[in-house]
């Protein structure tokens, strides 16, 4: 008898739920229509449950999670990945045009959209082999959101990656030809702002709710409109508007209070927040540009 006892790993999720429940999920998914067997489908459910749920999840939790998946779309995507012809026919009928529409809404230009969509399609189809197996991107779809939404997000990720790669490859000359202007080195280094200001701001930002920080970043950094942010978060525009005002005001108060606690007078703290030395520099730049009648410096945005 061997001296080492093998410790069993966590039981696959599909085995922890009743067979009848697996059968019901399988029926709901219509996986049979696109060529997936119940055994294959149970294995896919196991893989997804293991990815998102704690190992000790109870049957009810697993079932609730699995019922929340886009089962039909999941079965379709995985059947495509497995190479079932019927699944591909359905996929192409349902998603080909949507894929192209999504690519065009991202690139806003037909030829780039076509290139982007074709590139993703090649990945979905699986043209590259990894360790002797065809790597099909549809194997990564887990049914958490709609298949169409996943395709759009995947396209957007690819687009952002391409943009980032291209930015790295563009030479200084190309940037200059494209109209980018580069500011000369600052002749007189500006005094650094009080380090307490940055530390305090970091602490106050870190203490914000994630959603509030997301709204701030989307509005002030990314330039999203209230309507766009509202759509992303699934709330009304006016809610975002009120929240922005409230968060901005509360932040200012908290930073001021914290700066006072760290030794500044209230007036100093308020001035540190209201007047940044770099704002003064920008104003001077603007005045020079007005005087010369032409823009002397390239300024992104209008901070």
């Amino acid at each position, binding site marked *: 008898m061997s001296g080492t006892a093998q410790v069993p790993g966590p039981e696959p999720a599909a085995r922890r739920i009743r067979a009848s429940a697996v059968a019901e999920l399988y029926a*709901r998914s219509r996986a049979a229509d696109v060529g997936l067997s119940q055994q294959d489908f149970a294995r896919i459910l196991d893989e997804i449950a293991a990815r998102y749920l704690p190992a000790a999840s109870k049957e009810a939790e697993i079932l609730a999670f699995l019922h929340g998946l886009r089962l039909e779309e999941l079965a379709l995507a995985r059947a495509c990945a497995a190479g079932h012809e019927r699944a591909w026919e*359905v996929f192409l009928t349902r998603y080909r045009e*949507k894929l*192209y529409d999504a690519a065009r809404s991202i690139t806003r230009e037909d030829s780039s959209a076509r290139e982007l969509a074709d590139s993703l399609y090649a990945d979905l189809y699986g043209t590259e082999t990894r360790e002797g197996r065809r790597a099909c991107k549809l194997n990564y779809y887990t049914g958490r959101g709609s298949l169409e939404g996943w395709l759009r997000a995947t396209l957007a990720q690819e687009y952002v990656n391409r943009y980032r790669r291209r930015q790295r490859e563009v030479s200084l000359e190309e940037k200059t030809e494209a109209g980018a202007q580069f500011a000369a080195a600052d002749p007189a280094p500006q005094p650094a702002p009080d380090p307490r200001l*940055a530390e305090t701001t970091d602490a106050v930002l870190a203490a914000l709710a994630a959603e509030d920080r997301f709204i701030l970043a989307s509005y*002030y950094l990314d330039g999203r409109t209230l309507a766009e942010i509202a759509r992303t978060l699934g709330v009304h525009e006016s809610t975002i508007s009120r929240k922005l005002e409230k968060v901005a005001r509360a932040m200012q108060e908290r930073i001021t209070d914290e700066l006072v606690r760290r030794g500044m007078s209230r007036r100093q703290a308020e001035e540190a927040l209201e007047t940044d030395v770099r704002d003064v520099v920008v104003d001077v730049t603007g005045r020079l540009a007005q005087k010369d009648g032409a823009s002397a410096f390239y300024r992104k945005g209008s901070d």
Partner: protein
Amino acid sequence: MDNVPRIVRERLRNQAAVGEHPDANLLSAFAEHTLSEQERAQLLDHLSRCAECREVVALSALPQVEEERVAAGRVSATASRSWWRSPVVHWGALTAAALVVLIAVGERIRLREGHSASAPAIAQYAPAQRPEEQASEPAPATAEQKKSPGVAPAARTRLRADTVNAPSSAGAMGGVSGGNPTMEPAPAPPPAALPMKPHPSADASKIEGPLFDKERKIDQAQAKAFPVPPTASSHALEIVGSSGAAAKSAGKSQAAELSQGRNATFTMKERPSPRWTVSDSGAVERSFDGGRSWKEVAIADGVTFRAVATVGSDVWAGGSGGALYHSADGGGRWARVRVQASGRALGGDILRIEFADTQNGVVTTSTGESWATSDAGDTWHRQ
């Protein structure tokens, strides 16, 4: 909106992203509001610190204007097929035919009898046939033409301008994909080039080839075999606020307007495209001035609405208790739609409604259920 201090923007920008970038599954589920509270909070924490992932979320969301544009194209295509089925066109044509018969009969009587007593009667008709009045008050046939797809390009032009003026979804990327004023908004023909290798286990003759050239090769009937076949018992429609007779009388009144030379269709086309939203208190609201002012739209008492979606003139609103309402005329009249199949009804509150076109849509509920229709809400199946 007031600005925040520069230091706040700077420190916000400099925050380090935490953890790995979320994959497309989580990002799309986030955009569709189907993540659990815990997952959503974790993802928001990452997004608040990661400009790249925020960009992906923003890019992957189909712009609302784009949705309307695509929908308008599809609806106008549908309209071109079914314009003759419109009750307005039917009644207008009947009225026009009746008028022609009346005039012809009157003329025939006048010619046959030839007495002077008929002259006043003819004189009564004469002013209505003066060219200048024909121009200002179009005949029913002209009204029908305006209703016909010939008007659609104008509507598309208006949406095209909206699309071009819409803020660039890639604004934070330095404008690399900003709006292109020369972009052709009408759905482009399928791209021709996509050299594809055959899948090892699929029939290459059917799968191989350009992605967008495949459309005409695929049997649509086969594709429709995949969703649940519609069943007559799986859906019940009831008119809200007006009975079937009332709906018919509305059709008659439209016909009467046409017979009087009033062009109701033209008046509707002149109105700006409305925007729809749901207020915090659960009321459906509509704006005709691009979102500057909103007015509540009365749909049903006792329902707290949570979601609204539009596809052209089709408006869908859903909310508490699985209540789902549909208006086919831009919010004029509403019908309650029962979402059920095989004796089982949708459970929970409707939190999200998505319609890719006038026929295909999905509603998602607070209990995590997703119900889909592929026939404009006539039948549903649970996904």
